[in-house]
């Protein structure tokens, strides 16, 4: 087996290719399309009604709450992954019950927070 190429090389090629493709497409379509603006066309499209004000509006706090609960549970998932990775090895080495209870306690504590958020209505839409 020859020495493996470091994994970032294909990733870089792919990233550069995708970037090149996006830029190429945007530039070519910019050059090809001939803009023929008129006031109605330039207006913001809100179903034909004249737009009132800008869209720099505030929006409901619910989006923030959901996002916040997401990031905290995301951290939880970040701990679950390495645990899942080595779980079978741990079972084989006789640490199965320990690892299982360790993660159960972790998930149960977070579950408490989740239930709290549920009960106070942070998940109600």
């Amino acid at each position: 087996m020859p020495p493996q190429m470091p994994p970032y090389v294909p990733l870089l090629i792919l990233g550069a290719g995708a970037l090149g493709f996006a830029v190429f497409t945007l530039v070519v379509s910019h050059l090809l399309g001939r803009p023929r603006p008129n006031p109605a066309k330039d207006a913001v499209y809100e179903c034909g009604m004249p737009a009132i004000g800008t869209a720099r509006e505030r929006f409901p706090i619910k989006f923030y709450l959901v996002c916040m609960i997401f990031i905290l549970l995301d951290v939880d998932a970040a701990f679950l992954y390495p645990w899942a990775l080595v779980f079978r090895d741990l079972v084989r080495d006789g640490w199965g019950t320990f690892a299982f209870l360790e993660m159960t306690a972790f998930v149960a504590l977070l579950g408490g927070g989740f239930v709290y958020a549920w009960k106070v209505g942070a998940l109600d839409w």
Partner: protein
Amino acid sequence: MNAEPTVQHALLLSVGLFALGALGVFLRRNIITILMCIELMLNAANLAFVAFSNHLGTREGQILVFFVMTVAAAEAAVGLAIVIALHRGKDTLDVDAFSVLKW
């Protein structure tokens, strides 16, 4: 000087990021930008952890990064919740507006 990136180069990068984060905290007056600068400083610390752990051949530093990230997530969630609560009271995000603990 050696052209390879050594631990010193990673550490220099970390110092640079940390100082930039600190400078941002001094310069900016928007609370949210200041929180972002704090995230930048936490990241600089993480980079130093990874660089040292890499050099010294121990994994402790990298595991600490794990916990730093958790703390950063908790900090962002609570910090931004506080920002929202503050914004309700004063309708601004300028740090100079928040000079009292209670109003």
